[in-house]
């Protein structure tokens, strides 16, 4: 959670040159970090590769997979909270001229 930590702490540690623009920007960046599962997918793929290459054993894989799954769930929760589309869960064919 490097980026997020930096963003959350920066205003307290650094000089106060914040403006409305910065606040918007921070908000957007935090939102993005909370709701983007791309880096999690990449971590999962990297983990799989490590297992395939014999760099980690099964137990280590299972342990780290658990952490990654937890991160997926957190992102999904944030997306739900913020009313963004999520993957997983039941779906149905969208009805054309219906927006809810």
């Amino acid at each position: 959670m490097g980026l997020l930590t930096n963003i959350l702490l920066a205003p307290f540690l650094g000089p106060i040159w914040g403006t409305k623009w910065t606040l918007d920007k921070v908000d957007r960046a935090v939102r993005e970090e909370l709701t983007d599962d791309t880096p999690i997918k990449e971590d999962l793929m990297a983990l799989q590769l490590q297992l395939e290459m014999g760099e980690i054993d099964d137990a280590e894989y299972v342990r780290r997979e658990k952490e990654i799954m937890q991160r997926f769930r957190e992102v999904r929760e944030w997306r739900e909270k913020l009313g963004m589309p999520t993957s997983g869960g039941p779906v149905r064919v969208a009805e054309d001229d219906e927006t809810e």
Partner: protein
Amino acid sequence: MTSGESAAERSEPAPGDNTGEGKYVYCIIRLDRSREFGEIGIGGGARVYAVNHNDLAAVVSDTPIVIYDPTRENVLAHEFVNETVMREFTLIPMSFGTVFRSEKDVLALLKSTYQAFTDVLEKMQDKIEFGLKVLWDRDKVVAAVERDNDEIRRLKDEITRNAASSTYFARMQLGRLVEAAMEEASNRYVVDVHDQLKDVSVASRSNKVIGDRMILNAAFLVDRQAEKQFDEKVKSISRQYEDLLNFKYTGPWPPYNFVNIKLKLEKAT
């Protein structure tokens, strides 16, 4: 449609919770009658079978309404079903974790996307996918680059000879030269691999590389009849580069990377 009960449960199904109500969809195939694929489904060996609409079928298993985490176990179950189906059928793979509330909803998908599924199945007829990841052994590539590049060799000799007096600048310059030469070598390898596989594949797609040792992460669409030629070609390329590169070759897969139907799906409430 109005919302009934609330959204999905998370992770593992609670016992007795809507069990068997939903349908997990693995893939779409052309089939106009019922068919069983065995008890190989996600969630511990659920029965896998076909749900038909005209000459199309969705390959499904019954499931509680849950969100499936992409754990290795779940992903392997999903893939294993598709591999099994693929032995006999050309298929359009569904994304991992696609769950419909009922058979009726699955039929609605087949009906509404009938034409697109039919067209894609036609295009993908007898096509299979192979994955090829190429990783380099950094030390060996560095050694090769130093051997083949006069300027790098000369600079390196100079630095070693005058270890004490050699400047920070000279070392920096060497580092930069090596980096550039590595980059150039990596591009050359990747282009060569693609060139050699062009004649034995129908299409290829490069995906983002994973980690810092991977230089190629590609998918190739191959005609079933050309599978053997493709296979032999990959082996010959990996022999050609065996001192420098590590080839990870997987498949046959369903054409995950070559089918892109935008399904109009929404969250079922």
